């Protein structure tokens, strides 16, 4: 049974992570460049990007690992958050674009002033995004509304299992195609890029980058705590009960559809906030982030890290992406084979992911000690999840 209060190990882990991300790394980054311990802004932003992916992975795990809903379209919500903040960033470029007009570049060459003459070329739905508060609110409500509508229709129709996965994948693919269209007023294939400032801070400045990194770290820690609280509450028990046997929960008198809808919306909001912090750090958002393979990748991070745990997705997202960054630079010709082999090995031999390795090792040891072959293979669920 999962404890409601944080365990000692969790508290220590959180404290160490907090000191690392809020004190040590920013300080190392603030050192002069000539200093041997100087951490480049490039590396710090790269870490910030991994942390955004970790938030995304947590949202996938909340659905898949805890509720049994394998969403293959979580990157749609990640991208929606990215677009919402991207629109704000786009409007803050001002006259620093290629055409030196107040209108974003792509609106100039697509001749938006002809299409939207009353607003000087800016599509009406873009206008409120000049305000940060509106963009920030949109990061929350836009994915929430999309998830609520889709989830309501899907769960009310009792769409389950693989059918639910396929539908989520179709949803993100449809959105991807829609955003690809230049007529859709979100920059088409090129998406939104060449941002200059956020809330008046220069995006190229190291201090802004540090701020964004710390904001991402804070988001990850808050997300972790929220997920921790959610999954260890009474709600979390029902969540896991739905995962293990939805019909039983249903016949016990619970409206499972409502529970699932709630988790789906919460996960969408989490992914969206992660996406919003992703965009200013990588500098671009475009429809390819909604492509189906991106959402599949997020599921792989969770699988590698260990689903049904909260630390697993974080380890998986950071680990796999670090390996990808490393391998695409060091062995660019073979990185796909390395990652592919890792995924195969993990699913074949470590079904519980990285976090499951210690218990697997323990089980192996016990088997070795007893010198018997009758011990069953490790179950798919970790001991604490067993009913």
């Amino acid at each position: 049974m999962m404890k409601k209060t944080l365990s000692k190990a969790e508290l220590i882990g959180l404290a160490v992570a907090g000191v690392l991300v809020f004190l040590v790394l920013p300080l190392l980054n603030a050192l002069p460049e000539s200093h041997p311990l100087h951490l480049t802004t490039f590396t710090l932003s790269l870490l910030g990007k991994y942390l955004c992916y970790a938030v995304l992975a947590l949202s996938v795990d909340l659905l898949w690992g805890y509720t049994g809903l394998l969403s293959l379209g979580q990157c749609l919500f990640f991208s929606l958050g990215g677009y919402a903040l991207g629109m704000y960033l786009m409007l803050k470029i001002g006259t620093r674009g290629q055409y030196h007009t107040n209108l974003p570049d792509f609106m100039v060459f697509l001749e938006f002033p002809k299409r939207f003459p009353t607003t000087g070329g800016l599509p009406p739905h873009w206008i409120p995004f000049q305000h940060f508060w509106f963009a920030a609110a949109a990061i929350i409500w836009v994915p929430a509304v999309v998830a609520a509508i889709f989830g309501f229709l899907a769960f009310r129709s009792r769409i389950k299992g693989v059918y639910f996965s396929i539908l989520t994948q179709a949803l993100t693919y449809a959105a991807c195609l829609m955003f690809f269209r230049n007529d859709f007023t979100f920059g088409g294939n090129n998406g939104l890029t060449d941002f200059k400032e956020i809330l008046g801070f220069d995006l190229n400045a190291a201090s802004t980058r540090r701020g964004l990194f710390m904001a991402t770290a804070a988001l990850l820690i808050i997300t972790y705590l929220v997920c921790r609280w959610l999954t260890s509450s009474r709600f979390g028990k029902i969540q896991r009960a739905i995962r293990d046997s939805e019909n039983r929960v249903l016949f016990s008198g619970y409206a499972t559809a409502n529970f699932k809808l709630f988790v789906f919306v919460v996960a969408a909001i989490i992914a969206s906030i992660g996406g919003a912090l992703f965009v200013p750090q990588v500098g671009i958002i475009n429809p390819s982030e909604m492509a189906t393979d991106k959402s599949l990748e997020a599921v792989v991070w969770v699988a590698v890290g260990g689903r049904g745990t909260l630390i697993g997705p974080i380890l998986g997202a950071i680990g796999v992406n670090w390996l990808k960054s490393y391998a695409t630079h060091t062995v660019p010709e073979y990185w796909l084979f390395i990652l592919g082999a890792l995924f195969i090995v993990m699913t074949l031999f470590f079904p519980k992911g990285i976090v499951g390795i210690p218990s697997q090792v323990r089980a192996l040891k016990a088997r070795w000690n007893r010198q018997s072959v009758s011990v069953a293979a490790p179950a798919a669920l970790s001991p604490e999840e067993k009913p």
Partner: protein
Amino acid sequence: MKKLLPKILSGAAALALALTASAQDTVKVGILHSLSGTMAISETSLKDVLLFTFDEINAKGGVLGKKIEPVIVDPASNWPLFAEKAEGLLVKDKVAVVFGCWTSVSRKSVLPVFEKYNGLLFYPVQYEGEELSKNIFYTAEAVNQQAVPAVDYMLADGKKKFYLVGSDYVYPRTTNKILKKYLKSKGIADADIIEIYTPFGHTDYQTIVAEIKKFSAGGKACVISTLNGDTNVPFFKEFANAGLTSENCPVVSFSLSEDEFRSLPTKDLVGHLGCWTYFMSLTTPENKKFVADFKKWLKTAPAGVDRNNRVTCSPMNLSRTGVYLWKQAVEKAGSFDVDKVREALPGQTFKAPEGKVTMQENHHLINPVFIGETMANGQFKIIKSLGPVAGEPFSDKFLK
């Protein structure tokens, strides 16, 4: 333990020594092309030709006495990864220059990075213009070096009706917008210009081809295609099935070069036209040498380089030209410093396979333009050579 430590230390010292030694007689140069993902099929060829060019230059003593040491990364057709890899090349590897990018979105993604760190990028693939960064040199064909001359050729050929079909992304959109204005200025009526876009990976061209058939029924019609990649297969198949040929309605494609023909059924494309600043079938001595040397290099090329049925094409040629222009500018500046090289680049000329090319103040080339007709063997027969055209990224400067 006691024995191990001195070993490690001496090993580290030797390594450090080797590193500083190699740092003295080599210069690091980045290659930023997708080696995996959707763009790999096109971009891998550019990585290959860059490696070939580096070997060519290194064999003659390198640049400023330093051998070029390529740093290859794989941005994997993933646009945020392009930005990450570009930043890594500039910050971690501290490369002197980067050759890379194919799609406009990848260039847009790395542009802020190059401006932030004051890096230097050479971009080799025909594009839509409307951009000018002080940190990018565009050896690529601008719209007035490919689309406009091609349309001029069609007008001279007596064509009066133009059907513009493209994939829905920024290059076709911008090119067609410019062409429409240009055609109108040449007296073509609005009703005789049709503009249509299809999504990426579109396969059903029945309706569009039926429309083209109706459109071209009176003769004097042509199709200007900016369809990219594999959508060309169903398009040309449908085109041929409908009984349309290069005789009654020629298609000029801007995104198809010899390298793309390696993976397309060329029999459906025979007779249709292309317009580039370079064709593999050019017969200049420089081109014969380039093609022969490249083929020779392939035999001894590093592992992972495809050795079969290789060809050269305009983006490959322009990648190579970029390397030579950079080398000349470095030698003129006497330094690898980005600011000095940037200042030395305008005015550099190079005897390229297609003829003399000159880098202009606006970071684009003056380059000869050719019209070619597709042949069954996947090559172009050059049917018209249009002489040198000065590249101009902003359309309002060449559209009067």
